[in-house]
């Protein structure tokens, strides 16, 4: 099952198990399968794992484990049956694509030669797969952005976007977990609190889940935001 993986050291305390170099659901499935296998068969000395698009990073304590011993243990999983995954969930997430929640929408529309409503329509019309978290707390990386919305990163970062911003750049899409400066473009914002580090677990969405966005009007945003702040879930899950 992991026969084709490459084992690449990231110093003496981390190992990259790489299944490929592309953004590809099949590669990401292999990453998640190994992640589950490591969770089900804990190896003494492994501190934590970080699933990404196409590889799993395994952080470990070199006092308890060497790179070679870790590679050998992971190879031994090949013989074992894959661990069943819990079924992925499908999320319907409300998003406002209107001012003041869509700060960069018209800039993106102008750059791509599309109208602003068309950009919103394309973004809201796609189904996204959740590949990984990364960059900053609660930043969810999504695959499935329509090719018409491929725009390169900004040459310089823009001022911080609010938490819940829907960002695009480099042919990728993400949801911002916290307010941070970014080199991406902000198309809209969700009132849903998808990430809160004071919650356990801090993130609602799992890697492997799918996501769709439901446009809401600016007038509705404040109401939904209030509900979310009171702990009510404003994103829906579909079977």
């Amino acid at each position, binding site marked *: 099952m992991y026969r084709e993986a490459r084992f690449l050291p990231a110093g003496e305390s*981390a190992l990259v198990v790489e299944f490929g170099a592309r953004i590809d659901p099949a590669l990401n499935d292999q990453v998640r399968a190994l992640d589950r296998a490591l969770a089900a068969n804990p190896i003494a000395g492994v501190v934590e*794992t970080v699933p990404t698009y196409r590889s799993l990073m395994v952080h470990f304590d070199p006092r308890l484990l060497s790179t070679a011993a870790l590679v050998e243990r992971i190879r031994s999983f090949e013989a074992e049956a894959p661990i069943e995954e819990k079924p992925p969930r499908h999320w319907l997430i409300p998003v406002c694509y209107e001012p003041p929640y869509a700060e960069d929408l018209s800039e993106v529309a102008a750059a791509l030669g599309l109208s602003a409503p068309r950009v919103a329509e394309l973004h809201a019309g796609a189904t996204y797969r959740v590949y990984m978290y*990364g960059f*900053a707390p609660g930043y969810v990386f999504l695959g499935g952005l329509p090719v018409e919305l491929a725009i390169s990163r900004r040459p310089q970062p823009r001022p911080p976007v609010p938490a819940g911003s829907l960002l695009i750049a480099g042919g990728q899409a993400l949801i911002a977990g916290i307010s941070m400066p970014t080199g991406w473009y902000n198309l809209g914002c969700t009132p849903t609190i998808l990430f809160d580090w004071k919650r356990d677990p801090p993130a609602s969405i799992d890697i492997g889940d799918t996501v769709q966005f439901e446009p809401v009007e600016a007038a509705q945003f404040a109401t939904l935001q209030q509900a979310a702040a009171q702990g009510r879930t404003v994103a829906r899950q579909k079977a």
Partner: protein
Amino acid sequence: MPGALRILRAGFGATIQDGGRHGQLRYGITPAGPMDWRAFRTANLALGNHAERAAAVEIGVGGIEVFCATTTPIGVAFCGGGFSWRRDGRQVGCAARLILRPGETLTAHPGRHGVFAYLAVSGGLATPVELGSRATHTRSGIGGIDGRMLRDGDLLPLFAGGWPFGEARISAPWLDGDPAPVRVVLGPQDDYFGAAALNAFFGAEFRLTAGDRMAYRLEGPEIAHERGFNIVSDGIALGAIQIAGDRKPLILMADHPPTGGYPKLGHVIRADIGRLAQLRPGETCRFLPVGVEEARAAWLACENAVAATSRHLRPLQSAPHFGGRSP
């Protein structure tokens, strides 16, 4: 609780750190933790604290001035980066364990070398645990005091802790400046660079141009990519040497993001990351490639040496107050 340490003056860059926030990288949460783990652990171990779990103050080039607002004396230890420390105005060296009495002040100023010092207290600081750690990550506002750098007037709560020891000077060799090359394990994307780029990286001197807790930027010969500089994002570990479009090394430090999209030529080994962290802008270093087993052996040797900190304590003669001692 015996009271608190009050920050009279917080120089830029002072934060609360412990061994770091582990287990949450998969949600994008930065590990944080000390920039120089050797000095951080040394300060804790000099007091008999847990080497990693006890939270301490990390002090940057702005230095610090603290006031002992407790009802009973407390044990403190400081070291790292050759800072100059004073108790009530009297010099107390650059690395020591002291019994600080109520009403006394302790100040630190940068000395001849280094940029990070640590001030540990007996039992550790009692700030809140957030996501399993007291370490501060200022960019995401997690840990420490409200997730920020320390400010004038902050009160640092303490656990009840005794001082079953005398005052001592810490004379540990790993706290001295050391110009030896910084050792690097190649990978995971060393195949994005040709032999000429690798020779340039390991053959020349690099100068630190800018740095913060997230990353150190170095300047030297250009490190050219052979296969472009955009990769599909993968994991980032402490010490990753990222080469972006500007062909300059960016070394990811304690506040590194968990993932990134630039090729990583190699990783600075753990045994040497604290030494790199103590470089000042304008100072230079060289890099030396080593195998992963050699890196592991170096880490274990360094770790064992630091764990034996108690062997490097020399009693101070005129405790608790002694005048005129120079660093």
